[in-house]
Structure formats: structure tokens, C-alpha cells
């Protein structure tokens, strides 16, 4: 299975990098709203099946390692 985990700052956490990108877009006259969010993707493959147990292990991985629940949210996509 291919797994892609998306990690983003929680909505109310300041994102300094996003803000800087927003400002840079404006100075390039790109017509975006200045509120930009920069996040991370982590991609890897796992042998095996997409079972509820597996999802439990994956959630634990996301909570413990791949994201910091104090400031970040995650979600993932699993594809074959």
C-alpha cells in the first residue's frame, strides 16, 4: 500500500512560513488571499492490508512521530 500522510498546523496556530509565502505572493502580484498555509506530506509504502488494526497502528505513528498533536493535525490517504 502507498500511504501519504498530510500534516498541517492547526487552524489557530500561527504559520510563519505560510505568512512569508503569502507576503511574497503579494509582492509578485499573484492574486491569492494572503492567508497561506504550508504543510508537510510524508509518503511511504507498507506491505499488507488496510485493516482496522493497521489503521490503529498508523494513527499511533501519526500521533507519536509524524505530527505533534499540540500544534498539528494530520490526515492520510491509503492507496494500493
Amino acid at each position: 500500500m502507498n500511504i501519504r500522510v498530510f500534516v498541517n498546523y492547526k487552524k489557530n496556530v500561527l504559520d510563519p512560513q505560510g505568512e512569508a509565502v503569502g507576503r511574497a505572493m503579494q509582492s509578485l502580484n499573484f492574486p491569492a488571499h494572503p492567508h497561506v498555509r504550508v504543510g508537510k506530506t510524508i509518503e511511504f509504502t507498507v506491505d499488507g492490508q488496510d485493516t482496522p488494526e493497521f489503521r490503529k497502528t498508523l494513527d499511533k505513528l501519526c500521533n507519536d512521530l509524524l505530527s505533534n498533536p499540540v500544534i498539528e493535525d494530520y490526515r492520510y490517504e491509503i492507496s494500493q
Partner: protein
Amino acid sequence: MDMHVAVIQFPGSNCDQDAYHAFASVLKTPAKLVWHKDKTLGDARAVIVPGGFSFGDYLRCGAIARFSPAMQAVKEFAANGGKVMGICNGFQILCESGLLPGALIRNNCLEFRCQEQWLKVEDSTAHFNKETLGQRVNIPIAHGEGNYRIDEAGLAELEKNKQILFRYEENPNGSLCDIAGIRNKAGNVFGMMPHPERAVEPFHPSQHGVALLKAFLAE
């Protein structure tokens, strides 16, 4: 055997030797380096989680280091009331481990900052206060991710329990309420972005780190 200050060494630590020398050579206090794969801290009287780039600071600063066996020992040590101080990357590791509240993110200038830094001393504990340390101290910083973040409830908690140790006089990184260092509620786990071990010798920007490290060790 003497009780010693245990300085944890992770792959990528780079202020471990500096912290060791601040205790061993300047404070003349026995100190020992503890490899991150060690499961015990030996006869430690206090623990330093030093600065650097543990595991390259990949993913998030401190995210990988917190799983090291020695960190499990540090957690137990802290749970039993042992004194722990995280400096810079060590502060980040303690936050990631849940030993300290909040999190540290990218500096708002998005650049690394290495400079002398004046801090306002807060009255936090019987030893960490203006009386012992003075109104203000000059302790250098060197970090790219020292922007302290915590939610409103958490901040209110910190203020109420006097858990804030220092605030930046001029905020170098966007840190919430100028927070430069905090402690846990119990008062035995400390974390700060500035480097007291770089403020202990005559040629350093100041020698304010000496009193600070002594205050940390004080019973």
C-alpha cells in the same frame, strides 16, 4: 561515587560538550555524558538535555529524539522529582516528550539567529528569580525554531503557576508573550532556548550562565 549531572548525547547533539564543560570545568561539579541508547542515567543528581540538531532536527525539532531509550529514563527521573533542564534543542525535545507544555516552531523571521540576548528574569521559583539572578541576564541564543507556542488555556496556566522563567527583552523569534524559557508545574523540569553554557567564561558575552546553572542545581 559522586552524584553527577548527566548530559544526554543524541546523534546530532552539538552542545553536549559545552554543557559538560560548563559544569565540570567552570562550576567544578561532577558531570557525565550519557549516550542516548543507554537505558539508565546512573547516579544522576540532575539531567541536561543539551542543544544541537538531534537526529538532524528532521521532521520536527526533537521529534525523533524523544523516542531514545535515555529519554524514557529521563521521563522516569522527572516523574520521581529529578531535575531536568532542556537547552535549545533540549527544550524542543522536552516539549515533544510532553515533559513541558507547548511547542517550538520556526522563528518568525524564518532565519537562524545567533546573537547575544538580554532576558527579563521572572520570579518563578525559590531559586529562579530576580533576587538570585538579577533583573536581567545576557544569555546568547542560536536557533532557527525558538518561536514558543501554546494555546490560551495553556498560557493562562503558565502565568498563573509562575512557570515562565525568562522573557526576551527584544523578541528575536516571534515567541508568544516573549517567552524564552519555562518550567513544568511541579518545578523540576526546565526548558529554555538561550544557552547558559555559552555564558560562563570571561570571554563569553556574559557570565550570567553561572548563576543560572547554579540556581538549577540548588536544592
